[in-house]
């Protein structure tokens, strides 16, 4: 007798509170298959971006994700600066780095809290989110907002870090460091937590390469990739820091990568505050020259990729986004197989998925796929040709 059942997680995730749908195909408690359905929250950001000016788009792409709301605008402005060959003042580079790393700390602490919640350890959840508040307060002081910092603009940043703020930042960093230290010790010493996380949801190095995962998910599977090292943007090449990676590929390794990365981030921010030169924080940009450019930034979840094509007007004619979760979520297909339901829920969360970042369009009609991905792409090209015939050389 087949004992197959479907355990649904979704279409609205009970804990992450985002629209997704995972169908766990289980036999008893054991997961033997996973079906991933996304696309409940497609907002058409790329399309909207093609109707907005370069000044407006950073605010738009900021709202792709509430957690990595610096990575998307950063990648976008990098792409535009690449396309139009715009120089950015050095001080702005450092400020971008500081904001980017602060965001990494707050995102990793958020994940830590959620991971605690997923294994039923609500105390970790509440404490991690409490100490995350320190980072949010720093954001409020520096940028004026706790989320959606609106710091990036083409050619520089919008706000300076004032000299009197630096000691306050240093002080908060020290506190964040002690608290993260406490978490690291508490988590790596707790036998029950180790029993739940160790050798669970193993993503082998080969599978990680096959699924082209990025960010902490890849680094936990022994792949040493990090845009900050491989293709340094902002001030990352002027600063001394280490890439954290582990070979195990289980949930524990993912947790360790994220926890230890917090310390590296603190190190980077401290060096930035020390090395930051005086000077302007933005270059005046009057015109975006025609051309195409790419921007890559290492978001807390992995590499964010933006492609921008300009035709000399103040509106991009093509804007393409690839968020890191797009690569990471599908890797669950192999990572959860063979584990129990209890472990599967944890594995699905261990890649730190951000479903709204990941939304892509798919056209279904009467339960059948209307267009394949390639056909949709061709439709989009056709439309671009119709809208901008002068581009057809």
């Amino acid at each position, binding site marked *: 007798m087949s004992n197959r059942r479907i355990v649904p997680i979704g279409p609205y995730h009970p804990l992450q509170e985002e629209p997704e749908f995972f169908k766990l195909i289980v036999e008893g*408690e054991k997961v033997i298959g996973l079906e991933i359905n996304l696309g409940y929250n497609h907002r058409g950001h790329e399309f909207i971006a093609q109707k907005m000016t370069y000044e407006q788009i950073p605010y738009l792409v900021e709202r792709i994700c509430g957690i990595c709301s610096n990575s998307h605008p950063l990648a976008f402005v990098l792409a535009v600066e690449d396309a139009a060959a715009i120089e950015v003042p050095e001080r702005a580079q450092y400020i971008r780095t500081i904001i980017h790393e602060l965001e990494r700390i707050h995102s990793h602490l958020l994940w830590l809290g959620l991971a605690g*919640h997923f*294994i*039923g350890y609500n105390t970790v959840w*509440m*404490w991690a989110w409490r100490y995350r508040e320190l980072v949010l307060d720093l954001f409020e002081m520096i940028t004026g907002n706790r989320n959606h910092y609106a710091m990036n603009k083409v050619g520089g940043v919008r706000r300076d870090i004032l000299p009197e703020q630096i000691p306050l930042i240093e002080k908060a960093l020290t506190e964040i460091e002690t608290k993260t230290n406490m978490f690291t010790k508490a988590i790596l010493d707790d036998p029950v937590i180790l029993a739940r996380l160790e050798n669970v949801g193993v993503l082998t190095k080969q599978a990680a390469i096959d699924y082209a995962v990025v960010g902490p998910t890849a680094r936990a599977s022994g792949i040493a990739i990090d845009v900050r090292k491989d293709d340094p943007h902002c001030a990352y090449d002027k600063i001394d820091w280490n890439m954290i990676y582990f070979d195990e590929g289980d949930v524990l390794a993912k947790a360790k990568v994220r926890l230890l990365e917090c310390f590296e981030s603190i190190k980077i921010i401290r060096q930035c505050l020390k090395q930051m030169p005086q000077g302007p924080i933005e270059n005046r940009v009057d015109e975006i020259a025609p051309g195409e450019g790419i921007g890559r930034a290492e978001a807390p979840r992995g590499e964010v990729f933006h492609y921008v094509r300009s035709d000399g007007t103040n509106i991009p004619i093509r804007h393409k986004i690839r968020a890191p979760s797009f690569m990471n979520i599908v890797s669950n297909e192999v990572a959860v197989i063979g584990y*129990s339901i*209890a472990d599967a829920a944890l594995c699905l969360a261990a890649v730190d998925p951000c479903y709204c970042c990941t939304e892509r369009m798919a056209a279904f009609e009467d339960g059948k796929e209307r267009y394949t991905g390639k056909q949709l792409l061709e439709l989009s090209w056709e439309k671009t040709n119709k809208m901008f015939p002068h581009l057809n050389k």
Partner: protein
Amino acid sequence: MKVIFWILVFPGFLFSSIIGMLLTWVDRKVTARIHWRVGPPWFQPFADFFKLLSKETLIPVNASRFLFLMAPILSIIAITAVGTMLFTMNFYPNMSFLGDLIVLIYLLTLPPLATILGASASKNPLAAVGASREMTLYFGYELPFITAIIITIIKTGGTIRIGDIVTYQHIHGPILYSVSGIIATLVALICMQAKLGYVPFDIAEAEQELMAGVYTEYSGFALALFKLSKAMMLFLLPCFLITIFWGGFVTWWAILKLLLLVVLIILIKNTNPRLRVDQALKFFWVGLMPLAVLGVILAFFKL
């Protein structure tokens, strides 16, 4: 008339449920303080209960109606009987009858069985997974729990009357104050955590994995009864432990002991992640069972 009063008002249904709900408030408040939250006011459990009563009870279409609705009632009847017996035997040891300890153990196993029954009757896949987990867990903790009680039976010279156990402890001092007694209480305390369905053993209703697990299809009145029987368990299980191992309810100190045990349960709940069901079973059989057997051996040597 007197018996009906005992069953319905004191120390049966009404008394146990009010104290039980107050203790759930203690649970929620202490948990909130550990989490750096404020926590609810004292009447919150009562408000929740009465609100649930006013809600519609939905019964799934292909569920077995009778079993689905009987399960919470069975649970509440069993736990009311536990409350009534436990306290009458504490206050009037002469009323105790031969074998009432065994009856109590039986009655205490009924609420988990009722949840399994209700979950299976609801025909929900999540509830079915929850029920199978509850069943596995039940096989895990029941054996060490009974073994821990056997230690008391041995130490009191083979009595299975609660009245005699209480009287014995009144004369010779509580069972707890000996090596085997400490082992027995520890084992029973951990089993109690599982019986209550608290972290690290809230495997059957793991909200992160199974929504509400065994209670997924329950709503309104039926859910309120389940919640109430859980609240009463939070009161009566520590009372049972105190009666068997810690001198019974002879002095007012028992109230402090009760609070201490409840706070201990809450602390365990808040400083542990949830175990997987196979890990929990292994813990009970490989970890706790040898400890309980060691306790039995020590009890034979009057330690």
